[in-house]
């Protein structure tokens, strides 16, 4: 994908799409208040679903998943199942109960439920680490697109991308732009599916539903070029497949910025049906994403490009390269680049803002400056926002994997820490502060221990960090249960709150 010239038409479409979202956000913000760009207006359950999907859609969904298919074939299906199946857990175990707690962030929830400032601070630190890891995945996506748009190398593209993100947040904040998430979702999903339909049509496949039509491309790759998608579990065992899949599901039900969606919906019934619509809108992306990976391979084969490419950079650009090699007009690739940029920008901007807000609200006045005034907290938030952006940018210069793999690490950390804290906090009245602190600390260790396999060879037998919550989350739950039972129970007030306000325990 290396280009040396500025891609003018795609660049114009990227600018145009951002202008559309900003103009629409300005109109929205004149009608309603918005806090850190996450509040947004809800118009019915479809609106809530679109907001959930728009909030969810990031560079990992837009670019990363197709890249995984391009490189690893069936293994990438674990991402599809993990990132959709997690919403079942979220709906049945958490959505309505979180709404009943009435707390606005994950640290707020943990602090209130476990009646512990230490647990709250620990949850805030973990949420910030999750933000950083997830942010690196977005920055990598942004940098790859910037690199192609401006014809520059990856490293300067990371710096330009970071500057653009910071500039975008500052301008949006100064103008008071709210996110019109419904519009954003429908524009992004159109930008994602329309080029796919056009490609399938050009190839003579079933283009009305290219989510099925790409099956013909798998057949053609095999019959014409001898390229067979690997047998499902030939390179990765079924255990590893399931470990990744369940890790992503636990992580989905534990990601702070996903959970925060449910504090803001108007009613419990709306929260539940919003999840269903959100899941449908998200599934539309994941039904389609594999097609990009397959078609990129097919066009490369037809163009005489070597088929055994294992370059992660090339794989992460599979969505754009598929359209580029297909011979479709430039505006199609511009549409995809604009969609990818927009998804990554809105995700990373929201993450950095909520991360800095969490620092100024949960950590700064509690650990660093106990008598901080409101003005001090605002300065702390702004300073930490810049610091976070620099940290994420620095880590993005040498990312440790593909976009989807980096995102999966954030899911593993969330699945090993926040997910058990919420699960037991909601469903077991006996869980207490000592239990959740021990559990979250154990979760952090479990997540990062596989990285020490170089120094401690026996650790190499463990599943990779990105799959750690499959075993890690149940282990953390056991730690929480054991420590809670060995220490004094939580207060009568919080147990009564659970019985009266969160669950309906009355007899008919």
């Amino acid at each position, binding site marked *: 994908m290396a280009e040396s010239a500025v891609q003018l038409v795609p660049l114009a479409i990227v600018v145009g799409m951002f202008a559309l979202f900003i103009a629409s956000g300005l109109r929205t913000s004149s009608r309603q208040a918005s806090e850190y760009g996450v509040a947004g207006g809800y118009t019915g359950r479809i609106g809530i679903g679109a907001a959930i999907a728009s909030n969810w859609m990031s560079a990992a969904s837009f670019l990363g998943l197709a890249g995984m298919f391009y490189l690893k074939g069936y293994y990438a299906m674990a991402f599809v199942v993990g990132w959709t199946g997690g919403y*079942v857990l979220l709906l049945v175990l958490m959505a309505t109960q979180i709404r009943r707690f009435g707390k606005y962030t994950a640290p707020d929830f943990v602090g209130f439920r476990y009646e512990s400032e230490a647990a709250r601070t620990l949850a805030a630190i973990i949420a910030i680490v999750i933000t950083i890891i997830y942010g690196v995945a977005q920055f990598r996506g942004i940098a790859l697109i910037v690199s192609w748009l401006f014809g520059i190398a990856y490293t300067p593209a990371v710096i330009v991308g970071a500057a653009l993100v910071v500039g975008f947040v500052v301008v949006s904040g100064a103008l008071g732009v709210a996110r019109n998430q419904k519009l954003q979702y429908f524009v992004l999903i159109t930008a994602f599916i329309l080029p796919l339909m056009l490609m399938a049509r050009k190839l003579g496949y079933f283009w009305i539903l290219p989510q099925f039509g790409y099956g013909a491309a798998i057949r053609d790759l095999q019959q014409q070029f001898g390229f067979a998608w690997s047998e499902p579990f030939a390179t990765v065992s079924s255990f590893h497949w399931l470990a990744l899949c369940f890790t992503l599901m636990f992580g989905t039900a534990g990601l702070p910025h996903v959970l925060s969606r449910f504090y803001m919906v108007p009613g419990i019934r709306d929260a*539940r049906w919003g999840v*269903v619509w959100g899941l449908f809108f998200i599934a539309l992306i994941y039904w389609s994403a594999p097609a990009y990976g397959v078609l990129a391979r097919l066009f490369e084969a037809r163009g005489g490009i070597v088929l055994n490419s294992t370059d992660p950079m090339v794989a992460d650009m599979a969505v754009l390269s598929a359209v580029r090699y297909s011979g479709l007009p430039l505006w199609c690739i511009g549409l995809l680049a604009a969609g990818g940029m927009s998804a990554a920008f809105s995700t990373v901007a929201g993450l950095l803002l909520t991360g800095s807000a969490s620092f100024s609200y949960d950590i700064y006045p509690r650990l660093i400056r106990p008598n901080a005034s409101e003005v001090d907290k605002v300065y702390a938030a702004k300073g930490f926002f810049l610091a976070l952006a620099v940290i994420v940018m620095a880590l993005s210069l040498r990312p440790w994997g593909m976009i989807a793999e980096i995102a999966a690490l954030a899911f593993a950390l969330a699945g090993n820490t926040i997910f058990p804290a919420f699960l037991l906090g909601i*469903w*077991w009245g006996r869980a207490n502060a000592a239990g959740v602190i021990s559990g979250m600390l154990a979760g952090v260790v479990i997540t990062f221990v596989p990285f020490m396999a170089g120094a401690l060879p026996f650790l190499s037998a463990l599943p990779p960090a990105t799959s750690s919550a499959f075993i890690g989350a149940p282990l953390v739950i056991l730690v929480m249960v054991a420590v809670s039972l060995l220490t004094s129970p939580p207060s009568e007030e919080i147990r009564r709150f659970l019985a009266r306000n969160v669950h309906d325990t009355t007899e008919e």
Partner: protein
Amino acid sequence: MEESRTDKEISFFRPRGTAMRGEVRVIWLVLAGWFVAIVGTQAFVYLLEVNYSELLLNEMTFFNLPIHFWLTGQLLPLWFIILCVLFNIWMDRHAARRLDGALRFRIRSGREED
């Protein structure tokens, strides 16, 4: 009286009260459907892989897609949506029944007061 009714330990494995017991029962059913579908499809795909050649696996198609791509990539997300819809329908009906019961109780007690 109300104190003794609400002052009970909340536990997923020992739900208290009619409503919570019903909700937990449905949650168990949904989670069973969720778990069995995921593990079951992968076990099926694994058995296909073990028993048939790669070529044959790609020849077994449904709606154009190789069977393992279709089962995992298309059917499972659709199954998750169906599970969520069923859960919500049950929860809505359950809530409506409870509301209905509460209204009847209020009307009856109002008449008794008259």
